[in-house]
């Protein structure tokens, strides 16, 4: 029991009380249900990798968004994390493709541009004849540096815009509500 609580407590946003409640809940469920949960956890871990084009989480080599013929291939929205793709998809406002960087430039954490999926982005933009790259990166100090860095790299090849304003100060895309995000997407600005 305490082993289970301890495991739950390692999950993001789960404190000791929630962990205990979850553990008690699990113990009350029928064994088949718990089995299904455990299997789903393992399958997800073993089968979900990243899309070879956009680096979004995907069970297939190329993700659903990249495969969808209905999406506008002339725009790429660049985000830090797969969570941001999920948040933007909820708005149903954006119809183009994505590119997931896998983090932000942060020397303190030993993350430079080389550690992020930036070179593949530059290659994509050149090969796919992208018309617009939208940088949808949180306006934190690290987000700002990452935005400016990518902007400088891509400016010679394509139109680069950014969304950020309207988001809470230093906020995460994940926490912005759908209305705010949709509005930010509409009001994006040319990166100078």
């Amino acid at each position, binding site marked *: 029991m305490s082993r289970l609580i301890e495991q739950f407590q390692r999950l993001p946003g789960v404190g000791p009380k929630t962990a205990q409640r979850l553990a008690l809940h699990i113990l009350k469920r029928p064994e088949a249900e718990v089995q299904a949960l455990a299997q789903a956890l393992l399958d997800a871990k073993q089968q979900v990798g990243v899309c070879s084009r956009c680096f979004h989480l995907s069970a297939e080599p190329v993700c659903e968004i990249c495969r969808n013929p209905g999406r506008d291939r002339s725009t790429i929205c660049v985000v830090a994390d797969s969570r941001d793709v999920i948040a933007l998809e909820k708005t149903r406002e954006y119809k183009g493709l994505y590119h997931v960087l896998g983090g932000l430039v942060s020397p303190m954490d030993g993350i430079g541009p*080389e550690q992020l999926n930036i070179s593949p982005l530059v290659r994509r933009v050149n090969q796919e004849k992208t018309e617009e790259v939208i940088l949808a990166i949180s306006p934190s100090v690290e987000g700002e540096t990452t935005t400016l860095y990518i902007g400088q790299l891509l400016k010679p090849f394509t139109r680069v815009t950014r969304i950020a304003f309207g988001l809470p100060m230093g906020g995460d895309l994940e926490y912005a509500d759908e209305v705010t995000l949709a509005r930010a997407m509409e009001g994006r600005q040319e990166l100078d």
Partner: protein
Amino acid sequence: MFLEQLHLRHFRNYEDQPIAFTAPKTILVGDNAQGKSNVLEAVELLATLRSHRGGRDRDLVQTDHSESIITARLRRLSGDTKLAMTLRNSGRRTVAINGETQKRQLDFLGVINAVQFSSLDLDLVRGGPGERRRWLDVLLVQLEPVYAHILQQYQTVLKQRNALLKQRRSHLTNPGTTAPIDPTQLALWDAQLATAGTRVIRRRARAIARLAPIAQQWHHNISGQQEILELRYASNVAVESAAQDDAGVIQQAFLHQIKEKAIAEQYQGTSLVGPHRDEIEFLINQTPARQYGSQGQQRTLVLALKLAELILIESVISEPPLLLLDDVLAELDLKRQNQLLETIQDRFQTLITATHLGAFDAQWVQSAQILTVKAGQLHQA
């Protein structure tokens, strides 16, 4: 503004202590280590989100407990406000205004304004430049709460840039093991440091410009028209004083200075330009108070600064802030005590700690609310 009620739960040596403030002046009297300063510290936390004692939140939570709750009821011109702050051993804090939890701690700042004055404040004159920067920053947060965010952003950029400079240095001394640093990235951090730093510099310059004449007037009065006090903002990024409010000029000077110090930064692996190296100079009759000021002069100076803070905050927020006097009143001679008391009168709600009432003027002790403090318990005397 008037703090009507304060309630401490599991805070420091208080188990569960409600306090009702009933007079413009409240004296907390008791022996050493009974919990007098702890009350003032709770108010300081509500006003500034920090304690000048430093330390971690777990030190604020009563021993053997996991969380502490400070609540307060405040009367302001704009209406009554209820504040609550939860401190936890884990370090996670929650703040609420009128029962509504604030997503950003920043939004909690500026509800209670307070000037803190303790015997430690002599370090303002005697200590290093870091003490003076901290003092000015705390004042700026009171004047303009968004400054807390501005300062934090600057500090983050600074840390990131320092980390990058350190990486570059280890690459230069040991090219085999680490990758070279992309100059494009460094240039971006330079620009960010200059942008964020300029915001800090302009605000510090403005605050000193407004504070200096008020402090000078007070110092002149208290010293019996003998001395001229000057406060000077000696920013590490030097621009002519006429340009001190021009963001463009400061940013230019900032980037120029970074260029000039490039070699030194390369060797030292740390940022040598920016407001983290600012100084605020105190001069009495044109000589630095730090080296040449006598004890008495230094005390007069600190008192003048604190009075100036009170007046400046009052004029900016259009309401008198609270004054927290920790041990310091008894240390002032009667003349300076009276100067201070005449200024605050009944306008500024004042919380005073003391070990005895003997050192005070009998008349105003009579008009004050006296609370005795003993082992984490308060009693109306």
